[in-house]
């Protein structure tokens, strides 16, 4: 007889789940007329979950027979996921109204996906991991193809689905290998067995497959191929959502899996991580140069950024994990801000996506150009903007761990990367303006742009909350 599990640690998830079910029912019965209410409800539910996450007690609590854990790490990452989801939901509003995407399913799917992410972050067992991952992925496949009357969008959704299925297969195969060689699926149990017996080749291969599946989710090279196509094809707010929340959840999962159950195998998995980190940074930097579409550019940018985050993971130390968390926090702000700016690129109601369309923005729309410029400089890693500190923490951790080559390659690729970020600034400030974008850009976009660019600009003034929070979160992974 199993005792009824404690539900206190899953309060945020329950809030989101309940809201998602209510929204679904409400939407079905009210039809299109209920869309606005559903969106509001989604926002409120996620905000409530955010409050619940922040207000939750600080110690580590497990429930569901150890499948689910709530600790400082999961809380910090959940907060990031929820903030990302809320920001992208806000940003999407105007776009959806204009582009006739006012279907109530959109917020419902977003909410379910967010629920999956929250579960991923808290997963403490291979089964829970897979459950969360799939719950996250399935709604994402659908919303990638949300504009189903549009070829590009459906193509993106289909590609994402097929490749996602493949990656799920890889991941599951890895899980089964690990289970087969350790006899357990619980993270704590795996760690115990590995400490006792050492890591056999079977477990290592399982770990490689598992890492491959997770690398797909964070879009690290060579499992990144879907990213540019999906970002370009999917509706822009969806791309923004893809770039923000799921990346954070997947990175969180990556961190927990490698540090928690495979903590003793750091020497083995470090090689995988170093390889994909270098490959991601190099490809992210070089491939972006030739892009003419700003969304594709952002896709390569996110690939490169994941590479930098993985540099911190490669260090395999508490400091490294702290660096990754800080990096992801800053990345969230920069990405959300950049996509908000991209959403403001409209000529007479039509979205444009060419990088060259930004020419002369500083003259036609100075505040937007300023904000975009700040975000681009931050992505390029120019001090004193936040992006610089993100890179600083991960590179510092890598250097402390003795990974000099990795740190140097990271620095070199960030020089290459600076080229295309700063070229956008040059386009906006020094080129002849073309047709001006529509004024005004909309209240919700203004809000997101202002908040994120202020965060990026003023991070260095008071970085303590993020840095200390990240330190606490990292400490939770290294008991």
């Amino acid at each position, binding site marked *: 007889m199993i005792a009824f599990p404690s539900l206190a640690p899953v309060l945020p998830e329950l809030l989101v789940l309940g809201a998602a079910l209510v929204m679904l029912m409400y939407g079905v019965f009210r039809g299109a007329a209920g869309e606005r209410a559903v969106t509001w409800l989604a926002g409120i539910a996620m905000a409530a979950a955010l409050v619940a996450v922040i207000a939750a007690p600080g110690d580590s609590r497990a429930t569901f027979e150890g499948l689910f854990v709530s600790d400082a790490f999961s809380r910090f990452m959940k907060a990031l996921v929820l903030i990302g989801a809320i920001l992208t939901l806000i940003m999407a509003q105007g776009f959806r109204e204009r582009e006739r995407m006012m279907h109530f399913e959109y917020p419902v799917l977003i909410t379910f996906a967010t629920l999956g992410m929250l579960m991923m972050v808290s997963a403490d067992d291979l089964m829970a991991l897979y459950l969360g991952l799939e719950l996250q992925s399935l709604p994402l496949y659908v919303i990638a193809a949300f504009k189903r009357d549009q070829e590009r969008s459906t193509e993106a959704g289909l590609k994402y689905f097929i490749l996602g299925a493949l990656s799920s297969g*890889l991941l599951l195969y890895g899980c089964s290998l690990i289970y087969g060689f350790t006899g357990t699926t619980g993270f704590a149990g795996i760690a115990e067995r590995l400490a006792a017996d050492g890591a056999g*080749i079977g477990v290592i291969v399982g770990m490689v497959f598992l890492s491959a599946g997770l690398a797909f989710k964070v879009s690290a090279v*060579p499992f990144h191929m879907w990213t540019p196509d999906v970002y370009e094809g999917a509706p822009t707010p969806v791309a923004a959502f893809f770039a923000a929340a799921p990346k954070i959840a997947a990175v969180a999962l990556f961190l927990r899996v490698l540090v928690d159950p495979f903590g003793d195998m750091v020497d083995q998995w470090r090689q995988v991580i170093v390889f994909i980190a270098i490959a991601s940074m190099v490809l992210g930097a070089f491939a972006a*140069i030739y892009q003419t579409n700003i969304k594709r550019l952002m896709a390569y940018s996110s690939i490169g950024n994941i590479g930098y985050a993985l540099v911190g993971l490669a260090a395999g130390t508490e400091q490294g994990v702290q660096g990754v968390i800080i990096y992801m926090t800053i990345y969230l702000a920069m990405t959300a801000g950049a996509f908000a700016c991209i959403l403001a690129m409209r000529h007479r109601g039509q979205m444009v996506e060419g990088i060259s369309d930004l020419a002369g923005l500083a003259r036609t729309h100075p505040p937007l150009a300023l904000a975009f410029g700040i975000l681009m400089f931050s992505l390029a890693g120019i001090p004193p903007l936040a992006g610089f500190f993100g890179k600083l923490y991960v590179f510092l951790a890598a250097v402390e761990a003795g990974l000099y080559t990795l740190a140097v390659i990271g620095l070199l690729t960030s020089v290459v990367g600076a080229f295309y970020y700063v070229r956008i600034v040059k386009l906006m400030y020094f080129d002849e303006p073309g047709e001006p974008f529509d004024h005004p850009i909309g209240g919700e976009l203004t809000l997101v742009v202002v908040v994120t660019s202020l965060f990026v600009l003023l991070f260095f003034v008071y970085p303590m909350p993020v840095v200390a929070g990240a330190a606490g979160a990292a400490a939770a992974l290294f008991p």
Partner: protein
Amino acid sequence: MYTACVFLPLLAAIIAGFFGRLIGDRGSQWVTCGALVLSAAIGLVICYQVAIQGQVVDITLFTWVSSGTLEFAWALHFDTLTAVMVFVVTVVSAVVHVYSVGYMGHDPHIPRFMAYLSLFTFSMLMLVTADNFIQLYFGWEGVGLCSYLLIGFWYTRPSANAAAIKAFLVNRIGDFGFALGIFAIFLVFQAVDYETVFAMAPDIAGQSLEFLGAEVDTLTLICLLLFIGAMGKSAQIGLHTWLPDAMEGPTPVSALIHAATMVTAGVFMVARCSPLFELSETALVVVTVVGASTAFMAATIGLVQNDIKRVIAYSTCSQLGYMFFACGVSAYGAGIFHLMTHGFFKALLFLGAGCVIHAMSDEQDMRKMGGIWRMIPATYALMWIGSLALAGLPPFAGFFSKDIILESAYAAHSGAGGYAFWLGVAAAAMTGFYSWRLLFMTFHGPARADEKVMAHVHESPKIMILPLLVLAAGSVFAGWLGYGLAAGDGAFWAGSITVLPEHTALADAHHVPLWVKALPTVLGLGGIALAYWLYIRAPEMAARLAESLRALYLFIFNKWYFDELYDRIFVEPAKRLGHGLWKVGDGDLIDGVGPDGIAAAVLILSRRASRLQSGYVYHYAFAMLIGVAFLVSWYMFGAGG
């Protein structure tokens, strides 16, 4: 008071240079001219007290460097030699300053010009008052710098910039030798102050030193290295090419720097180092030969030049040669005496030429002058005085100083002395010729300028003519006033110049045969007569002569092809080397592999990287599987351990 004499020009230069905008053109003129006139007045007093009354004054300002055995101070050392130089420098400089007020009256950069002039004067005074070689070098480089700044004063003219750079570079070659000489002095003597070095010199004589793998006499080496410096600064044969080009500078600059003061620094330095030169027979011979050759070569070139300033420039070059071979035959006193008289009449000639150029609306080509002597009588008279002094006709200054030099050379009774004497006499004849050629072409004959210029011909303002009277007085009287002192038995120099007892050329000079004394004057007059005949009586003869002696004429006219030779040997290869290093070394190698190469590689890489993105799902899936396969094999085959 002695300190004030040296530092007043510096003060004026700082005020005019940095606050010229504040005090305006008029203000800077007043400040600099005031300082210089005061300085010149003190210079006269110094000359009287030190040279006539025989006080030697030493003022130590403060320690400059004290590092191990290397120790020297900023110090002012006034002995007779210095006093004479201070006198020449301050007086000529003051005259030039005042003259510049008129000559440069319409220039937009008056404060800068006046500041440079004053700074130059300060540097020159530092040079002559130094009591150690390092301070000498400081002044030496200071005048070099000012010379560069002043030649290139009209920096919008490409030719002026080229001339300034040329002067600087050619001087660098000399300075390099000079610096090596100072290093050698420190190496040998472990000191750089004159007193110690000169006192120890007799002990060093005869020792040898390894230099560039060869065993050489220590003092000869030092003297020759120092003399290379002197050759650069004093435009002796081989390193003389910068001086004529330096005429690109404003005329007062030519008068001050390239006639009366800076170019004489080399002569001064050789005289100053007479305790060293006296001990090296070889060095003295070299000095004599180089000086005599320069005197002759420059005089020949002067015969055929058409630019009024270039004629005078080559004449300067030639006269410097006289001074050097005077030093070479141990007649240092005569050399310095000629330096002083030359300072007066050459400055007079240059400033007179400046008046002519001023009158002719900035025309410098003598072929476009002529027939203006009635229009500018004062200038004409002054130019006559200068030319008479230059040609060495009695009783003008040049007569005394040039004759004593030539007589000393004759009296040296050595091979080098004879060489110097005959070349010197030939140069004297040519001096007479080119001086009067200049006078005749400029002032006489038919007017060859166009009517517009002729209508504008006018006498220069008083501020330009009055200073010239001072120089004219010097040109007339300096000779017989100074003859007894400077060229006498050496008591006048009171130890500031050392001559070995066996070097008696100067004393013997008073006992040479009459023909030796008369020859230069007679030949000078002959030169004048020839010039009269060729340019007044039979003007067409000059051209016919040039035609019949075409090869010789071209050789001389093209300045013995020195510039072409140097272009071929040094400038062109250096340019080619520089061009090669620029195109291949920097452009292809450093840029090509570095910035450009990396940028190109980045572009190629990024094109390839974006081509990876084919759009086909099976390509993507393939990449994923290959990735997994690679990672698994990495572990399977033990590489990852």
